């Protein structure tokens, strides 16, 4: 799981161009949207691309993302349970 959260953080940092942020800066339980990392709706769509591209998870309805994208840990949990690759 630790490997997965680290990989996920690296993928998010790369896809979202979070230039001044390193994986250690992101707390696994901290909120990603709003306060925390300050991600927005287009970032959520980029995370949907990450799920599809690296883990074979298709999320067609962005609204489903709301509960899944709370934190790195919630995304990693979702990936562990649903990944097809």
């Amino acid at each position, binding site marked *: 799981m630790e490997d997965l959260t680290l990989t996920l953080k690296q993928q998010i940092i790369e*896809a*979202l*161009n*979070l*230039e*001044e942020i390193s994986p250690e800066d992101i707390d696994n339980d901290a909120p990603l949207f709003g306060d925390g990392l*300050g991600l*927005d*709706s*287009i*970032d959520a*769509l*980029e995370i*949907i*691309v990450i799920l*599809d*591209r690296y883990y074979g998870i298709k999320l*067609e*309805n*962005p609204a489903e993302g709301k509960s899944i994208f709370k934190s790195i840990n919630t995304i990693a949990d979702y990936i562990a349970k649903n990944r097809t690759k």
Partner: protein
Amino acid sequence: MIEILATNIVSPLGLTTEENYRAVRAGRSALEPLCDWRGIPNKFTASIFNKEQVRAIKVEGFTHFESSVIRSIQEALLHCDIDVTSPRTALILSTTKANVDALDPKSEEYGEYLSPGATAKKIAAHFGMVSEPIVVCNACISGVTAQILANRLLSAGTYDVAIVCGADSVTPFVVSGFLSFKTLSPMECKPFDIERLGLNLGDGAATIIFGKGNSASNRWQIVDGQLSNDAYHTSTPSPVGEGTVEALKRVLDRVDVEDIGVICVHGTATMFNDQMESKAIERSGLSDIPLSALKGYYGHTLGASGVLETILAMRALDDGVVLPVRGFSEIGVSGRVNISNQEVACNKKSLLKIISGFGSCNGVLLYAKGAQNRTSNSNTCEVVCTDSIHITPESVEVNGESIATTSTGAALLKELYKRYIGDYTKFYKMDALSRLAILASSILLQRESEADRSKTHDIILFNNSSSIIADLNHLKTISDSDNFYPSPSIFLHTLPNIATGEIAIHNSFKGETSLYILNEKCEEVMNTIATVSLLASSNEKLITGWVDCCDDDTFDAEIKILTKK
């Protein structure tokens, strides 16, 4: 008074305005489900030209996109008597992606790519036009922006006639981009409906030829047009329709809304757009006016939509009707609107067009028959340049004075960011064009007094390369159907007007934002557009100039702040 001399629509429903109007009156839609279409892995629904239509439209020596523009203009010219070869006749081309299909290695037209400015020049030359063509690239509101520009240029006397043509093609480029935004409906779209699932895309070209008229004329005339940015988010509209409400307020000042027969809405059938429009309509006290929403017949024709849908709604009013909203059955928005899937009788001769697009931009146009055009060209105030900046890969000059820097190319932009902004990490998410625009404007604004800086500045930028860096990056993400992962943020930046939206958002400027593409850096055209726009604006200040990037290390930003005195 600026009036409509002639119109044309070229779409899968017909090659003239009348053919299109008759088809829509008969309830026909061009939308069809598509599967395995040109390497796109998802099923979607769109309105596209069939092979016979493509052949019928084809003009030898021109791409499909160019041919559709030429056919549309050619047919419109049959209905009016103007001198296209006069230097006082303007060509204004409204398009989001023009010839982009020719950049795609999988396209039959691969290799025939011309930038939008060069494309417009080639089309102008075909008609023997000599004035410098102007391309409006303002995302979904391009068609309305182009007409507002035509109104200003004609009212100011710069030209006598303006040919406004809006056109775009359904391509894997745009389909994949909208797929990445999860906004494409697999089924026929349902504007304003509770079960709406998103939009459909559509092929189309539409032309309006504008000329000068008088109050005795029985033609449609532009009363006024305004643009306003939400300054909210580059890909999500303000939930309460902030910019649309603001633009409506300015256009409807001194107008009796009782006279308005129809509101021709954007009605894309996405969750956000229709909801936002309903709020803007309610907030502006327009809830009782019937809506015309035509995406159920044509899909979203992008650069054509602001022209095409206006022509049809107008043509219907000429016959005393508002066209049925195809696809609508049960209201699914919270703002109160007057919408019907049945034809509605209407004998009023005034039409309101509203439209919104990526980059947080919104546009409003009011037309009427025998109207009083309100665009004031008797504005006697002077426009002066208060500050200017020039950034190249090797140098930075502010008001003619060189600034010492240590890096060049893309690294220079990061250096400037750290020195002049530093705390806006969104900068790193932007493409080179937006980075350049944000930097140049921020450095200029820092030279203004606190009081001046807090005033809303309009933003009008020009370039030649459009969004070529983002265009090529986006194509890379869709080149392989087994590795098809279009990125929404890359696609967003394939709309060059995002750069203007980024400036508006960064500074909370809720004024006009527009992006124009020219075939070359022509100071005269840029200054004319900037001046007529600022004089027609309620704002005092305008950030304007050239912002062009052809690759991450090759760029040119030369912008200034113009102020009314």
